[in-house]
């Protein structure tokens, strides 16, 4: 393993580490929004089940909440695409 690493050109190593970092960053950045979307949808479903007459408003707020939460994941995506070699 060390021999392989020693034979690898420094540039290739940096490119490979960049790719690994980009993938890891994107994956880690997706965890928080995933939890957030789960919370948003769970509470919206509770609201719809308790008050079906306000389902339209709950779904409107839910969709906007999901989209805003996804913006966090998009920031991770942007970092991913900028770091991608």
């Amino acid at each position, binding site marked *: 393993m060390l021999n392989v690493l020693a034979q690898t050109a420094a540039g290739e190593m940096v490119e490979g580490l960049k790719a690994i970092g980009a993938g890891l960053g994107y994956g880690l950045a997706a965890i928080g929004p995933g939890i957030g979307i789960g919370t948003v949808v*769970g509470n919206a479903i509770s609201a719809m089940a308790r008050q079906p007459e306000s389902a339209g408003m709950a*779904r409107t707020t839910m*969709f906007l909440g999901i989209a805003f939460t996804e913006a966090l994941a998009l920031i991770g995506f942007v970092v991913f695409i900028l770091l991608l070699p």
Partner: protein
Amino acid sequence: MSDSSTFVADLSEVTPERDIARDLAKRAVWVAPVFVAVGAVGWGATGAASAAVALILVVANFLIGAAIITRAVRISLNALYGAVLFGYLIRLGALAVIAVVLKGSGDWFSAVPFAITLLVTHLGLLTWETRHVSASLAFPGLAPEPVSQVTPEENHSK
């Protein structure tokens, strides 16, 4: 037992997320020339093409998200929960695949204008739409009349 089916039928009659997504798509068409022009001025033809691709991705993301919710609500609330979360995962995966493909597709793609357009349009369009929705909730007269509730006779009389 019939209560749940009635409830699901009631939920599927209104599609606010689809209306919002279509509204966002319309606004994206309005602002598209600005972002394409900024991309063209800053990065040339590659910037314009990258900004256009970013706009298409943002609109497609909104429309697909809304379509997933609309279809899942017709099934059940449990299906809605699963569909939204799995839809999120699948859309993120699709974005990653698209990013890798775009990066490797040649010299026509520029990452910086793509990233700027993606973030600014996503957040900007959402903020714009949220202001509109807030105003509609505070002043219901501002809300457009749903097309599905207008009968042909009413439409003709207008």
